[in-house]
């Protein structure tokens, strides 16, 4: 046996997945509460002990290596700044999301004093500054760079805007204490998205700096580099599973959903191009591997926000038809918000949680998928498509604590399907639903960096 350990320092739990590289199977998993506030290794050691206790066949000296990712201490928080909201601002946001970050702040056009103040007072980790196509508008990004300089921001700034301004931005930031990185423009031409360079530098800053700031440095010293934020690992796993590797075929277009306590993450892999000739694409180019995070859709921390998204009547439509309980929606939501560790104890409480999960799934899919709009032209009806057409997605995979521990997870995930009252949304058309029961998606994303073929094989075996 040649065990390899994949470690995820999550916001709540530190999870270890042990994989045997010789016979390609998952030996076992274990978890313990994450301990970033004291010593992050305490939680890891506890999880490690548990793993050895439950799997005595793993010998410490046999372990051939580690890879680790982290979303502890609030994950990676970023601010995205651009010019036009639908264009460079959106491109900047997508770069952050694709790198596994949460976009806490978004600014467009000239930054005001108030916005600078909000930025300074926030606890974000990295700023991404964009604006203008190459050869296009340079005034706005220069203005905002100067504002960031005046404000003496203390977090790293990634500049990914109009390349014509690079020299001037060097002049602005040189001889200041601001740590800055100039990379390729996130939107070099109108509507063209290019987030690769920005994503790479985000990951580099994450490894070099953020890990230390979040108190996970000790773990990096023991286990080697914490190579990426956890959401990026999930996205990489999804991409591998979709594309396949060498002679092993992938699953094709797919979607991964993670409903959490505070957010709902959706990842889709696929071009999402229009399926018909009378459809014309609108808006910024879509990333092949797309991730969106909904900060107002979650099971606990964001429970209060749900009633501002769906009415009481609509909420009731999400209960099972045979559910006889007369739920007090506002009260039940409040209870979950005030007690985020709440675990349903009765059948009714379970049913209520299921309804919340369905809403999170349904609403976040509405926001993630593309939409069509009819245009009546003298040549007949034409359609605008904004976003990805995901109607041909073949697989939807549920991951994350809420879904994998729910016996009815497949039923919850069916709310991704096409709906009669949401006809203009390009939602999946009855895809197969798989659950990441052994909770290995992030671990497989990590494993794929060194052993893509093994990671792919394991995913095909363990996603049920």
């Amino acid at each position, binding site marked *: 046996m040649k065990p390899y350990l994949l470690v995820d320092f999550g916001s709540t739990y530190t999870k270890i997945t042990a994989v045997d590289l010789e016979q390609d199977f998952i030996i076992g998993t274990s978890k313990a509460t994450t301990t970033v506030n004291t010593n992050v290794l305490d939680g890891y050691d506890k999880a490690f002990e548990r793993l050895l206790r439950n799997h005595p066949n793993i010998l410490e000296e046999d372990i051939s290596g580690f890879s680790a990712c982290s979303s502890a201490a609030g994950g990676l928080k970023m601010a995205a700044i651009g*010019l036009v909201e639908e264009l460079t601002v959106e491109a900047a946001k997508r770069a952050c999301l694709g790198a596994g970050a949460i976009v806490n702040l978004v600014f467009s056009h000239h930054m005001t004093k108030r916005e600078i103040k909000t930025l300074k007072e926030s606890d974000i980790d990295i700023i991404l500054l964009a604006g203008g196509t190459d*050869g296009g*508008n340079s005034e706005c990004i220069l203005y905002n760079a100067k504002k960031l300089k005046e404000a003496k921001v203390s977090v790293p700034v990634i500049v990914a805007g109009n390349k014509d301004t690079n020299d001037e931005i060097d002049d602005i930031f040189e001889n200041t204490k601001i740590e800055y990185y100039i990379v390729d423009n996130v939107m070099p031409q109108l509507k063209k998205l290019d987030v690769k360079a920005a994503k790479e530098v985000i990951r580099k800053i994450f490894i070099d700096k953020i890990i230390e700031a979040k108190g996970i440095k000790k773990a990096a010293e023991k286990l080697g580099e914490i190579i990426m934020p956890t959401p990026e690992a999930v996205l990489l796993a999804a991409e591998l599973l979709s594309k396949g590797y060498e002679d092993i075929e992938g699953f094709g277009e797919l979607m991964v959903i993670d409903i959490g306590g505070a957010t709902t993450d959706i990842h889709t892999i696929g071009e999402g191009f229009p399926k018909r000739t009378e459809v014309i694409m609108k808006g910024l180019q879509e990333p092949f591997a797309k991730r969106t995070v909904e900060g107002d859709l979650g099971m606990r921390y964001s429970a209060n926000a749900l009633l501002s998204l769906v009415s009481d009547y609509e909420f009731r439509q999400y209960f099972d038809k045979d559910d006889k309980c007369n739920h007090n929606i506002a009260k039940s939501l409040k209870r979950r918000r005030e007690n985020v560790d709440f675990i349903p104890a009765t059948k009714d409480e379970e049913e209520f949680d299921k309804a919340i999960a369905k809403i999170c799934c349904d609403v976040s899919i509405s926001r993630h998928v593309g939409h069509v709009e009819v*245009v009546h032209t003298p040549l007949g009806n*034409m359609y605008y498509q904004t976003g990805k057409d995901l109607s041909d997605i073949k697989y939807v995979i549920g991951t994350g604590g809420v879904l994998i521990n729910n016996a009815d997870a497949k039923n919850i995930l069916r709310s991704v399907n096409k709906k009669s009252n949401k006809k203009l949304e390009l939602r999946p058309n009855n895809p197969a639903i798989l659950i990441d029961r052994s909770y290995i998606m992030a671990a497989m994303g990590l494993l794929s960096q060194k052993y893509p073929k093994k990671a792919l094989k394991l995913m095909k075996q363990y996603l049920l």
Partner: protein
Amino acid sequence: MKTIVIGVIGADVHAVGNKIIDYVLTENGYNVVNIGVLSSQEDFINAAIETDAKAILISSLYGHGEMDCRYMREQCEEAGLDNIKLYVGGNIVVGKQDFKEVEKRFKKMGFDRVYPPGVKIEKALDDLKEDIGS
């Protein structure tokens, strides 16, 4: 290199003229940002802001141009595009109308150059050179 945004406005899908304009202006040294058919005023304006365009050339061939172009100048001003040149051409009004009248109406709407049906793109090219340089 000067940037120009071109496209076909409204629910209009006529793509041929649009391709010709793109070709000729590119050949003549302009950086052409072509937003294509079925474009809204917002699409033209957003494109012009990000690319720092000096002129917007709007095509319309299906007769509804006058409605589609209404308040275009005001929208540009609202978006901070104060000095941008606005050109429009094609079959821009319903039916056969006296072009002098049509031109007057569009100029009043804030368009700098207005072209009747059948005009050669070379004419607009000369005007561009005069208005924004080459």
